[in-house]
């Protein structure tokens, strides 16, 4: 089952809450846990950035550039809201399944 891109947004935010990551490493981290196509991640990052949940900064590594993504205050707030809603939804769905 593939994740919808809304939920993927929060997976990305949750990852970035722990540490700042650059594109490639972030893709690896997300892919470790859930099965997503590599194509979908950049559009997700772009969307989050446009909403103001992420900011970027550049750091050079071995002569080339790495663009790090950092979660903003709004991003953290959004993630916390989502976690509450998610838990409610989970309970409801589970009550049907059991």
């Amino acid at each position, binding site marked *: 089952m593939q994740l919808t891109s809304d939920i993927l947004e929060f997976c990305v935010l949750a990852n970035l809450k722990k540490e700042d990551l650059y*594109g490639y490493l972030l893709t690896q981290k997300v892919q470790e846990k859930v099965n997503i196509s*590599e194509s979908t991640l950049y559009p997700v990052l772009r969307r989050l950035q446009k909403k103001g949940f992420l900011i970027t900064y550049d750091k050079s590594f071995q002569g080339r550039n790495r*663009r790090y993504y950092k979660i903003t205050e709004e991003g953290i707030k959004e993630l916390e809201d989502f976690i509450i809603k998610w838990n409610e939804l989970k309970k409801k769905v589970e009550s049907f399944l059991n």
Partner: protein
Amino acid sequence: MTRKEFLTILDKELKILPYEEKIEVLKYYEEYFDELNLDKNDDVPNNLDPYKISREILNENNIKNLNKKNKFSIFDNIMTLGIAFPILSIIFLVFFIMIIISLLFIYPLILFIRYFMYLSIDFYESFDKVNNLEIIKYLLIFLIFILIAYPIIKFILKFIFRLFRYFIIKILNIKNVEEQYVNKIEYFEDLRKINIDLFVGKLIIKKGNENSLKYTGSYTNYEQKNGFLNICSVKRNYKINRKNYEVIEIIYTNDNLLLEIDKIVGNLDMETPKYSNISIMSMVGKVEFKIENDIFILNKNIIGKIKMDNQLFNNNSNLIVDIKNMIGKIDIKKRY
């Protein structure tokens, strides 16, 4: 798909995105492939699909990718063949009708002239052979014919003109809109690249002391951001007369200025910078480049002629001009 192919496709698909945003996307994937240690000709991972990525990005920008793409591809074809064909066929039609009209005149003209035949032989004798009244009669017939024919010819020519205009409007999908005539001037801090999606009118680009844009017209939008200038004519009106002729005059200061034109109908008059890449996809009209040193010009489909001094051409020039499809005239001169 190799890294190079992937990036080329992405670049092409995201053409309608603002330049800076497109660069951001390409940068991300460049970085990504660097991390994977992929070379230009190495294959990218299978599940990376440039079409899917660009679609998602464009959807998000509320750009109806498909519609726009269809519209533009039709336009591209029209530019090379579509415009040339109706114009040529209408020119032939005009000549054909002119010939028919002139044939109509020949018969009364003959009737009228033939009585003067005798005059040349012997003036006095001719009076015996020709009735004076008859000459006047045919002269009157001829004059009346002209009087009747004139409005008819006028009507026919007007009809042809309307037909011509109708086709042009159909082809270019022009709507007749109420318009406001604007006259303004704007100054920029930086100007590095000019990007023209579509422009109908006269474009003048000059080197000067201050980056500025002077605009007179009614249906062209422009937007300037971080040294990138985007120009696009939107509401196109077919009534192009002196009053609502679009004129944009750009003045730049940098030695290095890029110019990318997708479609332009009209005149382009440019003082070229020292280092530049100028690319023109489709153009109908006249181009005049005033160059500083030398020029390297590449062209693909040109109906028209290029006027240039051979000495100005240099394979290693810092000024590269690439013209894909063009109907019109190119004039290249030295500036000083």
